[in-house]
């Protein structure tokens, strides 16, 4: 058994886990954060995507002990402190980008990181950006739409950036 420390959605958690415990299982079953889903446990579907130090990773492909000392954001940590939905979450809602919702947490984490790195993705970049996650329900069209909508919402909220103000 190993004691590890994770910072999950801003709170520090100490957990004792066997070495073989998957990070996805640790989040879901040890920490009770069941918003992170597992659809394959072999790294293909992306349902289990969380942000590790800000970057999307597949939590089914990482052992909990490997994440010791790192910061993790799960779907439960995407909304604002008052529970207000993030622009990405709102965009998914407005665009009808989810049906059963099982793949959704993975997409939300992926898109959150995508837009942080590229606030105004082109059509091709948006498509590419979500093409590592499987969804069996939506046919993806509305997910891609939601990426653009989220970019819009974020831009509206942060206001025109300096570059644009100069132009």
């Amino acid at each position, binding site marked *: 058994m190993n004691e590890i420390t994770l910072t999950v959605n801003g709170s520090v958690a100490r957990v004792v886990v066997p070495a073989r415990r998957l990070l996805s299982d640790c989040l879901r079953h040890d920490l009770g954060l*069941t918003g992170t889903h597992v659809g394959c446990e072999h790294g293909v*579907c992306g349902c289990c995507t969380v942000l590790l130090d800000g970057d999307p990773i597949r939590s089914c492909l990482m052992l909990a002990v490997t994440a010791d000392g790192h910061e993790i954001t799960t779907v439960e940590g995407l909304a604002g402190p008052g529970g207000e939905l993030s622009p990405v979450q709102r965009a998914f809602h407005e665009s*009808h980008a*989810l049906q059963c919702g*099982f793949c959704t947490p993975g997409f*939300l984490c992926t898109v959150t990181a995508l837009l942080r790195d590229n606030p105004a993705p082109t059509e091709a970049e948006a498509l590419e950006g979500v093409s590592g996650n499987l969804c*069996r329900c939506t046919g993806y069209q509305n997910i891609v739409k939601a990426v653009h909508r989220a970019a819009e919402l974020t831009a509206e909220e942060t206001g025109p950036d300096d570059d644009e103000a100069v132009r």
Partner: protein
Amino acid sequence: MTTKLFGEPIPRREDPRLLVGGGRYLDDLGPGALAAAFVRSPHAHARIAGVDVSDAVEVDGLVAIYLWEDLPDRVGEPLPLLIPHPALTHGRTAHPLARDVVRHVGEPVAMVVAVDRYTAEDVCALIRVDYEPLPPVVGPENAVQGSALVHADVPGNVGAHLVQEVGNAREAIEEAEHTLAFRLDVERSASMPLEGRGVYARWDSGDSSLRVYTSTQASTSVRMAIAATLELPLPSVEVVAPDVGGGFGVKIVHPWPEEILVPWACIRLGREVKWTEDRREHFISSAHERAQVQYVRVGFDSAGRVLGLELNILHDHGAYTPYGIIVPIITSTQALGPYKIGAYRVEFQSIYTNTVQVTPYRGAGRPQGVFAMERTMDRIADHLGLDRTEVRAANFIQPSEFPYDQGLTFQDGRPLIYDSGDYPASLELLKSLIDWDSFEERRAEAAAEGRRIGIGLGCYVEGTGVGPYEGGHVQVTSDGRVHVSTGLTSQGQGHETVFAQIVAEELGVDISDISVVTGDTRRFPYAVGTFASRAAVMSGNAIALATRKVRDKALRVAAEALEADPGDLEIVSGIVRVRGNPTAAIPLKTVAVLSNPLRYAFDAEAARATQFAAPGSPDEPPLKEEPGLEGRDYYSPIRSTFASGMHAAVVETDPVTAEIHILRYVVVHDCGKLINPLIVEGQIHGGVAQGVGGALYERMAYDEHGQLLNASFMDFLMPYATEIPRIETAHLETPSPLNPLGIKGAGEAGVIPVSAVVASAIEDAEGLVISRMPISPSDLYDLRLAAARGEAERTSRSAG
């Protein structure tokens, strides 16, 4: 008027919780439950000679191991054959745990219960099963030879044989001016929801009651199956479908072995038990669909009108037939599509093989039927040198001909009579959206750039909203909230939203006051289930009818309080008022209070209904009808309602690599009146995406030993966003005359014609006859090589 809601694209009400990780899917429940895992057969066909658990029992944390012989009589019996049919003369179902013989890779042999899943799987790995392999039967054409048998008592491996005929098709074909005969092949695929199956059971030994959560499409029927099998009184069993991460058909089958075994073990152990299917288990132990070999013979005249059609189907149903022969029956009947063809004869044999059982997957036999019919239409057009749309138009049922009786028996045992539709209008719309008539110019432009493009189309009719019935319950409580429930289940179709839209509009209340519960037998115990694009039609109408009862009652009670005529009242935003006199009004929540004469006041609102506050007439009993402002009603249609649609695609095939790209995909869809266009579009997008998977990528690769070689997401190619074209949709709304809301089902529509459409377009691009799906770039490449050797058929257009 309350804001119009029916027909509006309002965003979904289920989203907020799902967007913050607040969904409650099966594996999210029961954090302290014991975990179950299964030892599953690695052989496609074998006799179990013995099971050795001596090492397994040493594992710390093990709670129990069960084999078939440990199960009490009733529990160990074969699982039910859900939909018997006289033609299914040799129906066979599995035992919950294999008894003596395993018949497909993945069949459960032993159940292990342990403190957690890791431990349970450790135990499984240490259980040694001694198998004596038997000859595996793989592929329906091998199977039907009958040299090896899946079930020793099923000769020729034939489970069912059914012929349906209207007119004398063979004679009509013989006498026709033109005839064609060919073979078609459709591969296996599967529903493959991202959440697999799962079951979690809680037993209260104090009052001997059982609650089971299961990721199902049919919770009411699972409940009855569990009560019957475990010999529990029905009122002591509750079954809840929590949030379900997709179904697409596979979760309509029930009870799965685990749905019996997990509750049984839970009661026996007096502990909560949970089992969550993993992805490999889902591939090898749930269900597949689609695989068929089809032989078509058709006779037609020079205008392309079909005079006689004969369809012979070899349907591979895998090792067991728990869901009967619904799939090949649907293929047989829905092959007819929007056409009136002269005479029709369809014959199928449903065949056992040592593979995973076959039960409905979205579309449920229709994609195969449409593939057969639409490939036929394309062949006729090619043979006669006619435009493909002309041949279809020549065979359409005309709008004036509804109701149209196809003369066959549909999957619900009722006559195949189409209720309404406008096929010529759909085709016109489709042609204009995809610029059908100017395609040759675009082909020439592309060719000038060295690119190869083709266009194709496919038409279908889908029987939706099959009976026998669904019900709905609507209750207004004294806080003004409206509680709606229906027994059928949800797997992402947005029922919480569309049913609330219906109630808001019918009752005249704000949608924010409405909550909807589905698939929870505590709330509504009678239901059939979610399949066959039936939820909106069946439960939507039942809920509308229940709401109308509530409304009538509200008006009666309010009329008395307002001393008005019920006919003069209206309900607007939750207030009952006299039309034209806004001062004479009473809120629905007060009506709810008044509809239940009280002795005790539990709050200020309730005080208004107590015996001294509302004395009423001394000569009448205080209670005149059932207390409470609530209503329950059922909708039971005389037969299915028939939605329809037509899709067209433009594809590009790479002249060198044979890569296939869908450049445009257009859908014209008619599901009657739309409740929520946003949701209907979403259903279409998702359906088309699954169709594209089936047309270009997905197949279950069984080898000759019955091993599934691609049982992972790594190897079974489900499309990602990059594989799915942008889908352009247009709607026609031909209302159904059969139900109060005029709606038809939409859930499966998107998937149905896609293989046919893509085949049509690739054939057009390549000038090579496409007769099997899916078609991968390598398949197309091989087909080109075969054509070059003169071994593959070219279309006459390209040959001429």
